């Protein structure tokens, strides 16, 4: 009998601190064949297990064509993620997935990409940036707007220079506040401010991909619509409590939609009138 909920063993191959409360874990399935057969789309997630603690949905933050390992960038917020932070290289975790739909990469081909993220929301978008960088000619311009709480809370900060080096790519950074003594050469304010003050992207031939706190996305969507973007060209990745990841347990229901299976990426036109407490 095949169990829908049995995780596969994955080994932590590397841990890289991102911010004081966030780290990127590089994983590989213990079974080499499982690893070589494993593929995912940018924006999909895995259910990550620590036995005796539980499971949590975590987006995959590495490029899709990296086949030897995959990354999860994890912030310590709940039971599982706190337990995760005590694990070390060589320790094992359980993985089942990938689940969810992922970003509309096919639709993005040949289009300009406006990528907007807040906080840990950059994690599921990192595979998009990496895909554009690795297959540059498949896409139009790339503009990234990213906001974090403080300079120390910026994810993947050692990769910004590399992203800026990708041709026809712009990166705008902002933080909510700069604690005394921190150096910060970028903007201070909300991501919405970047949309208003910095953003160069125009609605024509552009796909917007966005992930961050819902309150941020709500206001960014408003700002984009005010600038002529249409709901149908905006994609957002949503977060809900999940237990099963496969549209059965009921927790992530948002109106008729299951965020785990029908999402987590949604076209804003499809959810804007959704009768649930969203955006």
């Amino acid at each position, binding site marked *: *009998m*095949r*169990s*829908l*909920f*049995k*995780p*596969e*063993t994955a080994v932590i191959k590397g841990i890289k601190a991102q911010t004081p409360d966030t780290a990127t874990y590089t994983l590989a399935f*213990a079974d080499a064949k499982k690893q070589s057969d494993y593929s995912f789309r940018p924006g999909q997630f895995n259910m990550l*297990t620590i*036995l*005796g*603690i*539980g*499971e*949590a949905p975590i987006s995959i933050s590495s490029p899709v064509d990296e086949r030897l390992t995959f990354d999860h960038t994890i912030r310590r*917020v*709940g*039971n*599982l*993620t706190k337990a995760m932070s005590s694990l070390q290289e060589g320790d*094992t975790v*359980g993985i089942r997935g990938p689940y969810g739909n992922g970003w509309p990469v096919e639709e993005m081909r040949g289009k300009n990409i406006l990528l907007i993220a807040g906080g840990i929301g950059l994690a599921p978008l990192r595979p998009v940036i990496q895909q554009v960088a690795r297959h540059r000619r498949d896409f139009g311009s790339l503009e990234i707007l990213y906001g974090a709480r403080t300079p120390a809370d910026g994810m993947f900060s050692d990769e910004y220079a590399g992203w800026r080096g990708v041709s026809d790519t712009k990166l705008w950074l902002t933080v909510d506040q700069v604690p005394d003594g921190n150096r910060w050469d970028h903007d201070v304010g909300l991501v919405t401010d970047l949309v208003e003050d910095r953003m160069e992207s125009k609605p024509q031939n552009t796909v917007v991909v966005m992930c961050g706190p*819902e309150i941020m996305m709500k206001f960014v969507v408003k700002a984009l619509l005010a600038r002529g973007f249409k709901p149908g060209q905006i994609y957002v990745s949503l*977060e*809900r*409590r999940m*237990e*099963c990841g*496969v*549209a*059965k*347990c*009921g*927790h992530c*229901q*948002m*109106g*008729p939609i299951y965020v785990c*299976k029908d999402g987590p990426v949604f076209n804003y036109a499809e959810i804007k009138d959704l*009768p*649930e*407490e*969203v955006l």
Partner: protein
Amino acid sequence: MEHKVISRENLGKWLDTITREYDLIAPTLDDDVVLFKEVKSAARVLLDYNNTVLPAKDHFFPQTETVFRFKASAGQLAIEPEPPLARPRVLFGVRPCDLKSITLLDHVFDGDFQDGQYLDKRARTVLVGLGCNSPQPTCFCGSFGIEPGSSPAADLFFTEMEGGYLVNIQSEKGKEALQKGWSFFADPDAGQVKEASERAANAKKALKLSVDPKGVKEELDHFFESPYWDEISPKCLTCGICTYICPTCHCFDINDTSGQAGERFRCWDSCMFTDFTRMAGGHNPRPTKKERVRQRFLHKLRYFPDRYKEYACVGCGRCLQKCPVHMDITQIISDVKGGKLQNAAK
């Protein structure tokens, strides 16, 4: 359809016979509570009852079930999945409302991601229906197109008659179970078939409670926001009893026992509970009773039909009986039909 008849006395003998090869689950009466339980002898089977307190779903989607057992180990995770059922089962005495509900749960647990544990139990269980002769005042299965005296969802369907039962053989799986004690059954005469169909027709007539759900989903499509939800939700205690006794409610949690060795289990959860939608960071998209009460009724009457083209209510009436504050889904359906949500919205 093939029919057989069996006397009350022989029914006990057949049930005892099948326990040699099947696990027998049937309605039982213990401490004044009627529940489906595994029984070793037909003497334990309760034949005259209205309905069980918990629906039959408990035997496909148990209130708590082990998903797998684990041990701490270096390297590979030491996980031992639950074995499939050791023996096939006969689930005897299921009412048509509960039979229908199982087909609704099939939509959820089958499909793109097949739930092996549910489907194993489903495939290896012979569903034996038992027609209702005297529906309760809270029964309204007929409102959802369910006949109290018949059900296509059963493998075998029994209708009580003078001195015994008429049996409809509705699947090969059912016939196989019948054949374990074939000699206890006889061929019916025309009068017996007629008597059974009359009993079924009378049961249908005896349904007193009725609502018309036609168009309710379409109406609810427009009334996610309505003061109506503010009006009806305050009295709800969010105790969750409606979700536990509901034959179509299927939300669950997956949890681990803590420690170095233990099990991952799944257990029923309830959208009535505050924590149901609370995320790790603390954000809760359904923070108050209003959102939770609304979610339960919209799930039954709007979202489930959106996804699976059927209402997720079978009119068993358990929630009407057990809700401590008399939240009444038939009243809500009537209110929707009567334009009360629309009026409240004005």
